């Protein structure tokens, strides 16, 4: 029953690196975009806010699958050359989850008490100093738990890269293993699920460490949750933006 176990594990492992690359690449792009567009949504300029809003609505409102198909099949027609599947995948993951992340950044910055702004103004800090030294460090603590959930969603989203022939873990199982081992499908897919579970747990551990560091940075005591537990987001206090739906 478990004869092929080592074959299965090693084949799926061959996709592990690509899954990790796609996830890490996606996380990096998404994080940058989250901050850029999250802060842009709070800009005083109407135009900047509008641009940021349009980005967020388009990338949250259309499906990730459609975005992948679009970048992979449509964009080459428009620009004239083909994009490497992995790059296309990372770009879509970054752009898609960056749109969700922008809302997280916006919300966290807005949740910093108003007195902190007033204090910073009273101390004659420039707007840049105010944001960098006072507001962002405090907002960061609030951002980490929702970003933890977001990054796990992104990891899950990386499985879709199978559809544009990135040879990541799901692809290895679906295209390499399954047809010849159809009678052991349950084992193959269970293994794949476990691989993803482990990666998700690693993300949570990393984010918990980040959260503790961020809390120390602003002189707060890190809460006592175990390093493995991620904080659930307050589902009832959700404000829906158009195109929306939480992750």
């Amino acid at each position: 029953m478990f004869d092929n176990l080592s074959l299965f594990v090693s084949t799926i492992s061959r996709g592990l690196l690509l899954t990790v690359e796609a996830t890490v690449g996606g996380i990096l792009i998404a994080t940058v975009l989250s901050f850029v567009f999250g802060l842009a949504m709070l800009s005083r300029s109407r135009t900047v806010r509008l641009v940021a809003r349009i980005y967020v609505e388009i990338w949250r409102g259309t499906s990730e699958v459609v975005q992948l198909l679009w970048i992979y099949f449509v964009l080459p027609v428009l620009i004239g050359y083909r994009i490497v599947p992995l790059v296309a995948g990372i770009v879509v993951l970054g752009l898609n989850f960056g749109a969700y992340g922008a809302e997280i950044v916006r919300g966290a910055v807005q949740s910093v008490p108003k007195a902190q702004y007033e204090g910073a103004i009273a101390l004659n800090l420039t707007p840049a100093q105010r944001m960098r030294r006072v507001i962002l460090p405090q907002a960061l603590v609030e951002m980490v738990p929702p970003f933890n959930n977001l990054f796990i969603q992104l990891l899950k989203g990386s499985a879709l890269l199978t559809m544009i022939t990135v040879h990541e873990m799901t692809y290895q199982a679906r295209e390499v293993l399954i047809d010849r081992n159809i009678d052991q499908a349950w084992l193959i897919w269970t293994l794949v699920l476990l691989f993803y579970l482990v990666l998700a747990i690693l993300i949570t551990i990393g984010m918990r460490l980040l959260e503790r560091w961020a809390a120390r940075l602003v002189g707060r005591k890190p809460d006592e949750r175990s390093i493995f537990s991620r904080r659930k987001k307050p589902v009832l206090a959700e404000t829906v933006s158009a195109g929306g739906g939480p992750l």
Partner: protein
Amino acid sequence: MIWDWDYFWEALPIVVGDGLWITFQVTLLGSIVAYLLGMVLALLRRSRIRVVSTVTWAFIEFIRSTPLLVQLFFLFFVFPDFGLKFGPVTTGVIALGLHYSTYAAEVYRAGIEAVPVGQWEAATALSLPRARTWRAVILPQAIPRVLPALGNYTISMVKETPLLLTIGVTDIAGAAFQEASSTYRYVEPITIAGLLFLVLSYSASLLVRWLERRVGTLH
């Protein structure tokens, strides 16, 4: 010319005609499964029997941490081993419903916990049986308040129905891709699919916002 309006108008009815109904059907049925199963999970999670609540917790975390696509493949390939011959649409509905039920469970849990303790105490004081307390006191207060949050997950689900094209269901994205593959013209059909999803999720989010105002989401 890269963008062809004539072809756009030609492809639009095909994509809408073939795909929209399936997307609607799958989302509706998937939501029903998710809402019902989510309630069951939420109640099991609150069970006083330790083993039951721990196993439920582990199940919820496992499903939430792993990709829907892989879960879909799991069901698609493993159901036949148990002699279950479901069509791709049914398999997709079950996968979506199962995946989102774990999110719905979390929503119900929050809703149930938001019911003031005094309501439980009053039910005890009236010595209402446990089943009646749930049915007549707690759930009628909890459920309306969680409807917007559940609605949000339905919006997410709409955007995940295209996953089903991997097992041969032609939803909006599937229909667009099929049309594109048969004519080798990708630009218009796939753009149409994107626009349709934008319209669908935008209008759905307006609906949820209206619902939110109606029931007054609590914080």
